[in-house]
């Protein structure tokens, strides 16, 4: 197990409150352009987050997972700060509501027609709903 000197301090902040502050060996982040994993000593990075799971690998303590949708992350060599518009624990996700959201997204997608904006908006809704459903189904 990694000693304290090589642990990342991870913070997850939502508009309402600071959700948690925890030490971890590594973090997986759902960046907008794909998942990335951050270890201790990572180069400074600022990235936009998409919808997906943030996973903290805490060594012996086991993993922690949060479903986040949209936000930003700042990575410093010893610190990771996640600013998420919305963050939920997998067990808090309301699957039925996520399903409705997916239907709504598909509906928007169908109606979008030629409008690029409406199309992107629909894709956002769909991505969020799918990420939530995947995260809820993937209970460990």
């Amino acid at each position, binding site marked *: 197990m990694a000693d304290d000197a090589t642990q990342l301090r991870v913070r997850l902040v939502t*508009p309402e409150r*600071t959700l948690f502050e925890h030490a971890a060996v590594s973090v997986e982040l759902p960046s*907008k352009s794909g998942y990335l994993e951050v270890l201790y000593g990572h180069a400074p*990075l*600022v990235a936009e987050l998409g919808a997906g799971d943030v996973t903290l690998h805490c060594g012996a303590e086991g993993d922690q997972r949060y479903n986040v949708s949209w936000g*930003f992350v700042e990575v410093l060599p010893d610190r990771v*700060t996640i*600013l998420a518009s919305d963050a939920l624990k997998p067990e808090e996700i309301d699957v039925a509501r996520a399903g409705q959201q997916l239907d709504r997204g598909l509906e928007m997608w169908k109606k979008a027609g030629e409008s690029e904006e409406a199309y992107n908006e629909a894709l956002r809704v769909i991505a969020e709903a799918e990420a939530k459903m995947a995260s809820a189904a993937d209970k460990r």
Partner: protein
Amino acid sequence: MANVLDLRRRIRSVKNMRQITKAMKMVSAAKLRRAQERALAARPYARMIASVLESLTRRVDIVDPVSGNVRHPLFLTRPEKRVLLLIVSGDKGFAGAFNANILKTAFQFIGAHPDKEIDIEAIGRKGRDTMRRRYPVAAYSETAEAGRARLPRQHAVEVVGDHPGMLGKLETGRVQDLAHSVVERYVGEEIDAAYIVYNEFKSVISQRLVVERILPLMKIGIPQIAGTHEPTEKEKERAAEAALSAGIPIEPADTAEAEEEARKFGTAQVDYIYEQPAEELFAGLLPQYIFSMLYHAMTESVAAEHAARMTAMDSASNNASDMIDSLTLTMNRVRQAAITKEIIEIVSGAAAL
């Protein structure tokens, strides 16, 4: 002169009233405590968004050097011809001059800009009711293909929308939607600037009314205050007294350390790798920044409303106590007078024998 029975009845009714105002005060105090916590908890996020945006604007030119385009339409400034005014008031009354002051500030703002077209959007029921009475509601055509399309405006000042019940249960989703719609209107050139009127709340004794410009963005991280109204010393004293009797700490909790910590977000003196190009980051960050400003204004306003109600109800309870005292005094006097009169009658009756 009123008789003893009447006075006793009045005292009883004032006592009942005092009980109600006391209960309302305690309820407001509890709600204030919760609102204060929420306002505090929301600060790191707002602070972080502001600082990462600020550092990004420092590192990246707002204007793309190659194409000469501004990187995000929210940075564009136009002459202010049409202005959106968001008014954050309370949902309920019984809060002293809270709502009246907000509306007064809003009317002053409208009065000071007679040459501009002003769209009013009210958040909070009290503000909506007053604005609707005073100004016409903007006309929309519902039949248009694209949903709601604005018809040509008829008046200089129009009410474009309201959000009753948004403050009662403050949800980030709804505020997010509002921010989104404000941004959309600005980008679509429906408005040239956006201001928000709200009651800022630092602590029970330090509050002020603020007119803040949220769009266009000039300087990130520094609130653009267009006008303020501070409470008088006497009002402050009154509020402090009320807070003390309700067990609310007067000074705000010390958050300097957390603030400092949050301010560092995205501003370390290192070269960041930006995962996305600057345009994309701006496109994601700016609406979030607008959202965090709106959310901040609303959480503060909710806390201020409860504080105002608490103060008002404390004053009401005190007034009721004073009234009971003076009524009791009068009642005792009346009773004494009656007794004296009877004694005189008996004595003079006895003397006549």
